[in-house]
C-alpha cells in the first residue's frame, strides 16, 4: 500500500482495521510511542489557526499511550514568550512541554533539557541536519523543530507577461523585465509597478523583530554581518547602509504603502491577496491562500521565485523554526519526549505541510511534493520545490544569542527613523550599534 493511501485511511479512522497488518514506524501505537498510563503531560502550545490543526491529532497519541495531554496554555508566540519569562521569574516551571522558536530559544537560559538524551537516534536521523543544528544552543538540543520559515518572492505573473510593461521597463531601466534576481532589480521593479495609492510595488514588515530580520538577511546578502567573531556589532557598515537604503528608497518612491512601518506579516499577506501589490517576499504559509480564489484576487496568477541576491552574491535566507521543548523540571520526560516525537512525526508533518508549512524531516519534503504532484496541484509542487531549495542552500538563522530580541528592539526603531528621514542611515545604524554594544557588554559577550 502506498503511504498516501495509508494516510488517508488513517485520517478516515481505519487505524484499528490496519493495525494488525501494517507495522510502520508511523503508526500511532504503544509499540512506537510507549505506554504511559495515568501520566498527564502538561503543555504550553502556540495557538492560532495555522498551528491548531496539529493539535487535533493529539487524541490519537493519548489513545495509544494511555497518557493525557493537558494543554494549559494556548497563545500566540509573543504572549507565550511573556508567560514563559514570568514562569522563570516565579519559578513555576511545573509543565512539561513548551512551544518554542529558534529565535527565542537562547533567551530562556537552561530551563529546557538536552533532547539528545531522550529522543531516539533513528528519529533524530530522519530530521534535516541543518534544522537540528539551528535548534542547538550551547551544544544542547533544546528543541525539536516542528516546521521552518524562510521567505521567497511571490509575484503577479501577468504583470511580467504584459508586453507593454516589458517595453516600458526596458526603455526606462535599460534591461529586460523578468522576475527579479537581485535586490536592486527588486527595487526597480517595485518602483516601476507602483501607482500609489491604488497599487504598490511591494510591502515589507515595518516594525518589531520582523523588520530587523529583513534588514539582517539583506545585510548578509549584501556581504555584511551583524557581529564580528568577537560579538562586536558591525552592521553599521557600507552593506548595512545599502540595506537600509533599500527600505528607504522604496518608501520615498511610494512604492510601498504609506503605512508600511506599522505593518506586520498579516498586512503583507492580506495586501498581496487583495491584488494591489506586485511583489511580496513572504513565507510559504501563504502560498495556498494566495492561490485560493475564495480568498485571493491573484489566484492562478501567482508566480514564485527564490529570494533575491544582494551585492555579496548571496541570497536572503533569514530562517527559523517553530519547535517543541521539554523542561528540565518535567516529571514525565519520557512521556513528554514521546509526545514531541509524535507531534513532529512524518504523518503529522505531512498534515502541516498540506497547509503550506515547511517540514523539518527530509522525507516529508519528498512525500509532500509527490502528493501534490499526484493531485495535479502544480502550484504547490513548485512552492515546495522553491522553498526546499532555499531551505537547503540559503537558510541562515539570526545569531543564537540570549539578547537577540533586546538587540532587535534597539535596531528596529533606528531603522524606522532612517526610513522616515529623521536620521541618516549611517547615523541611525551607528546609534543602534552603540546601543547593541552596550547590550552585549551587559550580557557578558564583550
Amino acid at each position: 500500500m502506498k503511504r498516501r493511501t495509508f494516510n488517508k485511511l488513517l485520517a478516515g479512522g481505519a487505524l484499528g482495521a490496519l493495525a494488525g497488518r501494517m507495522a510502520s514506524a508511523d503508526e500511532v501505537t504503544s509499540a512506537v510511542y510507549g505506554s504511559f498510563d495515568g501520566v498527564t503531560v502538561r503543555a504550553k502550545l502556540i495557538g492560532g489557526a495555522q498551528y491548531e490543526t496539529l493539535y487535533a491529532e493529539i487524541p490519537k497519541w493519548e489513545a495509544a499511550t494511555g497518557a493525557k495531554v493537558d494543554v494549559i496554555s494556548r497563545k500566540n508566540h509573543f504572549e507565550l514568550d511573556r508567560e514563559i519569562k514570568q514562569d522563570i521569574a516565579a519559578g513555576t516551571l511545573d509543565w512539561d512541554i513548551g512551544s518554542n522558536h529558534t529565535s527565542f530559544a537562547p533567551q530562556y537560559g537552561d530551563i529546557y533539557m538536552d533532547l539528545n538524551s531522550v529522543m531516539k537516534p533513528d528519529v533524530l536521523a530522519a530530521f534535516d541536519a541543518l534544522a537540528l543544528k539551528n535548534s542547538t544552543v550551547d551544544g544542547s538540543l533544546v528543541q525539536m523543530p516542528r516546521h521552518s520559515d524562510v521567505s521567497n518572492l511571490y509575484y503577479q505573473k501577468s504583470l511580467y507577461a504584459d508586453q507593454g510593461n516589458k517595453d516600458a521597463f526596458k526603455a526606462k531601466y535599460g534591461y529586460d523585465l523578468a522576475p527579479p534576481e537581485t535586490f536592486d532589480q527588486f527595487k526597480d521593479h517595485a518602483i516601476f509597478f507602483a501607482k500609489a495609492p491604488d497599487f504598490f510595488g511591494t510591502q515589507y514588515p515595518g516594525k518589531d523583530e520582523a523588520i530587523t530580520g529583513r534588514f539582517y538577511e539583506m545585510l548578509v546578502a549584501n556581504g555584511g554581518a551583524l557581529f564580528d567573531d568577537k560579538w562586536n556589532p558591525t552592521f553599521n557598515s557600507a552593506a548595512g547602509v545599502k540595506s537600509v537604503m533599500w527600505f528607504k528608497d522604496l518608501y520615498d518612491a511610494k512604492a510601498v504603502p504609506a503605512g508600511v512601518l506599522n505593518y506586520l506579516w498579516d498586512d503583507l499577506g492580506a495586501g498581496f491577496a487583495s491584488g494591489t501589490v506586485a511583489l511580496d517576499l513572504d513565507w510559504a504559509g501563504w502560498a495556498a491562500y494566495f492561490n485560493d480564489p475564495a480568498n485571493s484576487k491573484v489566484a492562478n496568477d501567482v508566480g514564485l521565485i527564490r529570494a533575491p541576491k544582494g551585492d555579496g552574491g548571496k541570497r536572503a535566507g533569514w530562517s527559523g523554526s517553530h519547535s517543541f521543548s521539554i523542561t528540565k523540571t518535567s516529571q514525565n520526560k519520557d512521556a513528554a519526549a514521546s509526545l514531541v516525537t509524535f507531534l513532529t512525526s512524518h504523518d503529522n508533518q505531512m498534515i502541516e505541510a498540506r497547509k503550506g508549512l515547511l517540514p523539518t524531516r527530509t522525507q516529508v519534503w519528498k512525500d509532500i511534493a509527490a502528493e501534490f504532484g499526484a493531485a495535479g496541484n502544480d502550484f504547490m509542487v513548485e512552492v515546495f520545490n522553491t522553498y526546499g531549495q532555499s531551505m537547503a542552500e540559503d537558510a541562515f538563522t539570526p545569531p543564537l544569542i540570549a539578547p537577540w530580541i533586546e538587540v532587535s528592539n534597539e535596531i528596529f526603531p533606528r531603522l524606522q527613523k532612517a526610513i522616515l528621514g529623521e536620521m541618516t542611515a549611517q547615523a541611525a545604524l551607528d546609534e543602534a550599534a552603540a546601543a547593541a554594544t552596550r547590550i552585549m557588554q551587559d550580557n557578558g559577550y564583550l
Partner: protein
Amino acid sequence: MARYSPKRLFRNRMNLVPFLLLLPAFMVLALVVVFPLGFSLYTSFTPYRLIRPNTLHVWIGLRNYTDLMGNGDFWAAFGRTVLFLTIALNVEFLAGLGIALLISRITWGQRTLRTIMMFPMMFSPILVGYQFKFVFNDNIGILNNALQALHLSDGAIAWLVDRNLAMFSIIFAEVWMSTSVFAILLLAGLLSMPRDPVEAARVDGCNPWQVFRHITLPYIMPFAYIAMTIRSLDVARAYDIVHVMTGGGPAGRTELLWTLIARTGYNNAKMGMANAMAYISILLSIAFTYFFFRKLIAARKFMRGAD
C-alpha cells in the same frame, strides 16, 4: 428635649466600627496593590532580569533611576504621555459635555439614546485597539477608503505613521472609548439640576449662553471633576489600545510610558529598569489624580455654599 442628640448616637459608638467596616477594602487592596508595589519598588533597586532569577538579589541602589535621568527616550515618552492625557481628557470632557447637553434636551427616546451613548463602554480596550487599527489602516482601512470614494483625498493617508496623525489616531481611539464616561456623568448632573435658577435667569433677561456660562456650567463642574478623576484613575487602560494600534512606533512616535515599560520589562526582560520607569509613571498618575481631586473638593464646597 428628652431625645438625645442624633449626632451623639453615632459618635458614641466605639471608634473601631468604621475601621472594621473598612477592613475588607483595605485588606484586598493591600493584597492586590500595596504588597505587589512594595515588591516592584524593591526590584527597581536591582538589575533584575526576568530570565535570570538570581539578579533579584543584587542591590544596585538608585542606578536604574540615575540611568533613567539621562535616558532621552524615556523622557520623550514621559512628555508624550502627559500630552496624550491632557489632550484626551480635555477632548473627552468637551465632547461629553456636548453629548450630554444635546441628550438632556431630548425627552422622547432618551433611554435608548443613553444606551447608545454608552455603546463604546461595552468595548474592551483590546478590541478598540484592533478596531481602530483596521479603521486607520492606510491601504484597506475604511477611513481612507471612504475619503478616497468621496474624493476628499487622493492619496492613502498614513494615519498610523505620520508624526501628528499617529498621535491623533491613538487619541481618537482613546476618546472614542472613554467619552461615554464623561457624557453619562455630565448628563446625570444636568438632569439633576434644579430648574428654578435657570428660569429666574431667563426672566432676568439672560441669553442662553449666559445661562449656560453662569448657572449650568458651575453646577455640573463637580460632575466633570468626578469624571476626570475616574478617568485619570484608569487611563493606563489606553495601554491596550496603543499596544495594538502602533506598539509605540514607528520610530517611537507614539511611544507612551506604558508601552515603553512593557517592552523593557517583558521583551527585553529588564524588569528592574521597567519597575523604576513604572514608579515614575505612578507619580505622574498620582499627580493627575490629586490635581482633579483637589478641584473636586473645591467644587463640592462651592456647591454647598450655593445651596
